[in-house]
């Protein structure tokens, strides 16, 4: 039996899939697992700054309760006893939700977000709240109100945002999975830049009740985890109809991992000939093409697709999210005008130049754009593309470059509401992660995760060889 640090090191290397089996077999206890993660947070997060608040006492209390349940044979499911973190945009009863801002530092929540209730019912241990871009309005992960969250692979580089802390915490093995929100790519962008999996499910499958909004039309809730399979485990817990969210849809008794492990032979995967590959870093292009070849070698049918209209997606996303974001923040921008991050304030206020006609045109264009995408999905099952066109930029560099280029691809699938996954496809020569995006038809989230899990295995040996560095 391994003792002390060796044992902790072993514990933090397991995925949710590994651990749920070991917890069920009672070979690992939720208390030792939670302690291992809390110790690691204390050890390494001083440099990474991925957590805004760590729930040490309540996490350990829950771990002790769950250990008793498990020892008595009452197993709730694969998340029972698993430490999970939350972007600090989700309400947890009697805890503060800052939404990454200065002005909400005393904002105690009166009740749990629906997804928090669902995680707790599944036996997950909420280990703390992670950092984010102020009010989730930005792509780089920069936030001047808190110690800067850094990319775990190179501390001078941005982690991506807005769910920056969730991406860094999962990649650095400070938790097994985390929740984020995604309006233009805020789950998938940090997942890509941190080298993990991030999943934006079909619109409506996960409740947004108790989640601070940015854009009611485009906001999604989704998991970040080490593998697509682990994302599926979290999705099985947090999805389901919720009457308190008017956009919620029902998909009861659905197993998001039901296809994982099955052959991908015959699955038609479309490679867009426009937009996604037009202005791409060459190392990213190489890794994406390697992954496409790998899928073809495994029996997938690779098909070139033409979708020149896809270039409108980013603009539709930008106008809708900016308009709705301003409408949520306009009164606060006057009342608390000196407390906003100047960059975020400026981005919100720029939306003052959008007219009501422009907003309505953007909403109509969203319907048109979604119909176009649905037509593409009549020819193919999935679309594959890079997640982000550039590698992680410098924290000290010009933030406008990151904010302009990073969300170019991801926001397309917030407009359409289709399920979309970012999975690690390898690393650059400078050891920066490269993400690949797989997107599918509405309610075929399981197919996206199935193919994502196949990709996730390609570079796993290389990934493991780098793990000791973070």
């Amino acid at each position: 039996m391994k003792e002390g640090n060796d044992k902790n090191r072993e514990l933090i290397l397991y995925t949710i899939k590994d651990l749920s089996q070991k917890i069920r077999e009672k070979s690992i206890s939720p208390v030792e697992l939670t302690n291992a993660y809390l110790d690691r947070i204390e050890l390494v997060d001083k440099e990474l700054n991925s957590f805004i608040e760590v729930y040490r006492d309540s996490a350990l209390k829950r771990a002790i309760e769950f250990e008793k349940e498990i020892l008595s044979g009452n197993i709730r499911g694969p998340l029972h006893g698993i430490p999970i973190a939350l972007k600090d945009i989700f309400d947890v009863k009697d805890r503060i939700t800052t939404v990454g801002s200065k002005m909400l530092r005393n904002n105690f929540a009166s009740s749990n977000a629906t997804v928090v209730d669902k995680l707790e019912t599944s036996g997950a241990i909420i280990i703390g709240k992670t950092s984010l871009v102020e009010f989730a309005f930005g792509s780089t992960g920069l936030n001047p109100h808190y110690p800067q969250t850094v990319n775990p692979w190179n501390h001078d580089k941005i982690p991506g945002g807005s769910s920056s802390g969730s991406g860094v915490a999962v990649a650095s093995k400070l938790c097994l999975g985390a929740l984020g929100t995604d309006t233009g790519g805020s789950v998938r962008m940090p997942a890509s830049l941190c080298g993990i999996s991030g999943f934006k499910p079909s619109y409506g499958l996960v409740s947004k009740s108790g989640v601070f909004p940015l854009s009611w039309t485009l906001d999604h809730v989704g998991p970040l985890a080490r593998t697509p399979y682990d994302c599926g485990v979290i999705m099985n817990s947090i999805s389901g109809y919720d009457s308190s969210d008017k956009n919620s849809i029902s998909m009861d008794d659905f197993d998001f991992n039901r296809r994982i492990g099955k052959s991908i032979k015959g699955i038609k995967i479309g490679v867009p000939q426009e937009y996604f590959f037009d202005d791409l870093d060459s190392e990213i292009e190489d890794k994406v093409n390697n992954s496409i070849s790998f899928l073809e070698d495994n029996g997938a049918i690779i098909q070139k697709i033409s979708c020149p209209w896809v270039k409108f997606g980013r603009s539709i996303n930008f106008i809708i999210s900016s308009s709705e974001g301003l409408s949520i923040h306009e009164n606060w921008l006057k009342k608390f005008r000196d407390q906003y991050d100047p960059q975020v304030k400026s981005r919100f206020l720029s939306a003052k130049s959008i007219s009501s006609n422009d907003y309505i045109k953007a909403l109509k264009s969203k319907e048109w754009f979604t119909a176009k995408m649905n037509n593409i999905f009549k020819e193919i099952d999935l679309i594959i593309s890079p997640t982000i066109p550039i590698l992680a930029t410098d924290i000290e560099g010009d933030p406008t470059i990151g904010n302009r280029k990073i969300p170019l691809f991801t926001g397309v699938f917030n407009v359409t509401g289709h399920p979309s996954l970012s999975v690690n496809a390898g690393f650059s020569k400078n050891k920066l992660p490269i993400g690949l995006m797989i997107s599918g038809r509405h309610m075929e989230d399981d197919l996206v995760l199935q193919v994502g899990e196949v990709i996730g295995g390609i570079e796993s040996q290389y990934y493991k060889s780098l793990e000791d560095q973070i």
Partner: protein
Amino acid sequence: MENLRTDFFKYLFQDFNLTLSEIRSLENNINVLESHLDILRNLDIDKT
């Protein structure tokens, strides 16, 4: 058009208490936003 734009900035300057550097940052963000608006205004969803 330029006058309208100046009035727009004057309004934001007074109403939201912006500093001059914030006005410059805002101008950059408005340029980005207007490039997206131009794309959408030129999109004919009945023909495309």
